[in-house]
């Protein structure tokens, strides 16, 4: 019953959030990027009639409310219009980029969790102190480092693409962010009274330190899982910094090119996708903790 109530609240919140993010993304993209074709007819680089025809074709001249309704309908039917920069339907393009981003981030988050768990079990609290110092460093700082490595070693090309070497570089950019943030939150969790008692009991029965730390991770699995989800949401948000640096043609890269080269339809579509995922991850993080944590579970 409690799970059902949580699920209903989650869906209601998701729908409200999605409505806000969808409307906001379209209005912001249209208002901030305007109609990039409007100026072309005036400068003579494009016949005025052709500019008008293109404006009509790309739906950039219609009033904001009409365009918004068309965009909302397009999101449901899978046709939000054409991308001005890439001259292809924006929705499949955005979905493709988004899938590439999720794929790389999934690898990165998994690698980060594995890295943290392995190092923590092997090295203990010394690692937490060292790793938590890095917890505020965002992914694009590591990505800049990878970019320098790419230029100096030729390990991978900096041209846009989604090759294996780029996916690995992206995952290696995300992994330290996840590992250090998990170290930060674990350092706080192990200071709790519950954790101290757990360690004392483990020491009293002669359990190996590594086994005690495995037990501690299991005790705090719920908050760690919730924190991993919010970190994944943060990484997704930072994809707009990381992907242009790595030349990784995911959602962040597409959004950057859409904004910098003036493509309102593509920008609004990707913004909506990123916002929807972000809402889902944050809401899931809030739902996961009470469902998994036995202290918060009700009969």
């Amino acid at each position, binding site marked *: 019953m409690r799970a059902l109530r949580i699920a209903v609240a989650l869906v209601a*919140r998701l729908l*409200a*959030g999605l409505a*806000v*993010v969808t409307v*906001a993304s379209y209005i*912001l*993209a249209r*208002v*901030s*990027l305007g109609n990039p074709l409007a100026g072309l007819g005036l400068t003579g680089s494009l016949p005025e009639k052709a500019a008008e025809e293109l404006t009509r074709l790309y739906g950039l001249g219609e009033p904001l409310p009409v365009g918004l309704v068309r965009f909302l309908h397009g999101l449901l039917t899978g046709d939000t219009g054409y991308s001005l920069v890439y001259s292809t339907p924006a929705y499949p393009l955005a979905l493709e980029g988004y899938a590439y981003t999720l794929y790389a981030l999934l690898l990165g988050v998994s690698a980060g969790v594995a890295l943290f768990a392995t190092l923590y079990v092997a090295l203990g609290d010394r690692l937490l102190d060292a790793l938590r*110092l890095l917890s*505020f*460093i*965002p992914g*694009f*700082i590591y990505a*800049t*480092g990878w*970019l*320098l490595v790419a*230029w*100096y070693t030729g390990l991978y090309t900096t041209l846009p693409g989604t090759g294996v070497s780029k996916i690995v570089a992206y995952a290696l950019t995300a992994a330290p962010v996840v590992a250090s943030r998990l170290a930060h939150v674990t350092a706080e969790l192990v200071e709790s009274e519950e954790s101290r008692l757990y360690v004392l009991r483990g020491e009293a029965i002669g359990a190996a330190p590594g086994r005690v730390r495995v037990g501690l991770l299991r005790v705090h699995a719920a908050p760690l899982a919730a924190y991993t989800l919010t970190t994944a*949401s943060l990484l*997704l*948000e*930072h994809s*707009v*910094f990381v992907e*242009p*640096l790595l030349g990784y043609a995911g959602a962040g890269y597409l*959004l*950057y090119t859409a*904004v*910098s080269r003036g493509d309102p339809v593509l*920008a609004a579509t*990707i*913004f909506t996708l*990123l*916002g929807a995922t*972000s*809402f*889902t*991850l*944050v*809401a899931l993080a809030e739902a996961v903790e009470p469902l998994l944590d036995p202290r918060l579970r009700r009969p």
Partner: protein
Amino acid sequence: MRRAALLLLAALLAYTLAASRVECVYAAPLSPPSLYHPLGTDPLGADALCTLSKGFLASLEAGFTGAAAALLVLVAASTASVSIAADRLITLASGVLLGIPGIALFMLLSMLFTLESWQAGLLVGFFAALQAARSVAARAKSVARKPFVEAAAATGAPRTRILLHHILPNIVDVLASYTSMAAAAAVYAEAGLSMLGLTDPSTPSLGRILNLLLNTPGAILTTAGLVQAAASIASIVAVAYLFHASILYLLEAIRV
């Protein structure tokens, strides 16, 4: 450690304020480091140490405004403990705005307005604090249920007094923690947006130094380019860390 960070931050602020008034010396573009130009010259020929110093100021501005915006939002969130209307408003605002991808939003906003460093910092601080608002409100409400606060309310103490004298002093650790995180996030976001060329191009910034190096063909492969890129990255991380450590120190000192 934190006191040292505060002193360093103050010294950095004084230095960059002084450096911002000095005109940078120009020489051949991408000259290697030398006695006269310790970090060499940038792709435009300006002394890199000079542009780096000016870039510090932009990062400091972003950090300060980010911290100020975050502190204001968090203190406002703590009023949830004394006002039901404020509590509902915070729940609603954070619930709706929590999932909005902030960086993508700033990118779109940067097309609408030419964002200066302090404006980018202000926006990031506001959004970062909004994410933490519910935690702060929850903590403030838990303090409000403690006997000493209920006793103060029973004696007829006004809500403002309860908030200022009983609740805020007892949540200062949470305020410090989230404010420091928001300040660090503001420093990083300002650098990231500048690196992508999405902030005011006339304002020097640590991110803009990287943008110039990454967008000038071959620049990063020179000794000067590599040294400047490394110095810029190290500076961004250092400024963010200095903010984080000093705010924690300052607010803990106030608490004592």
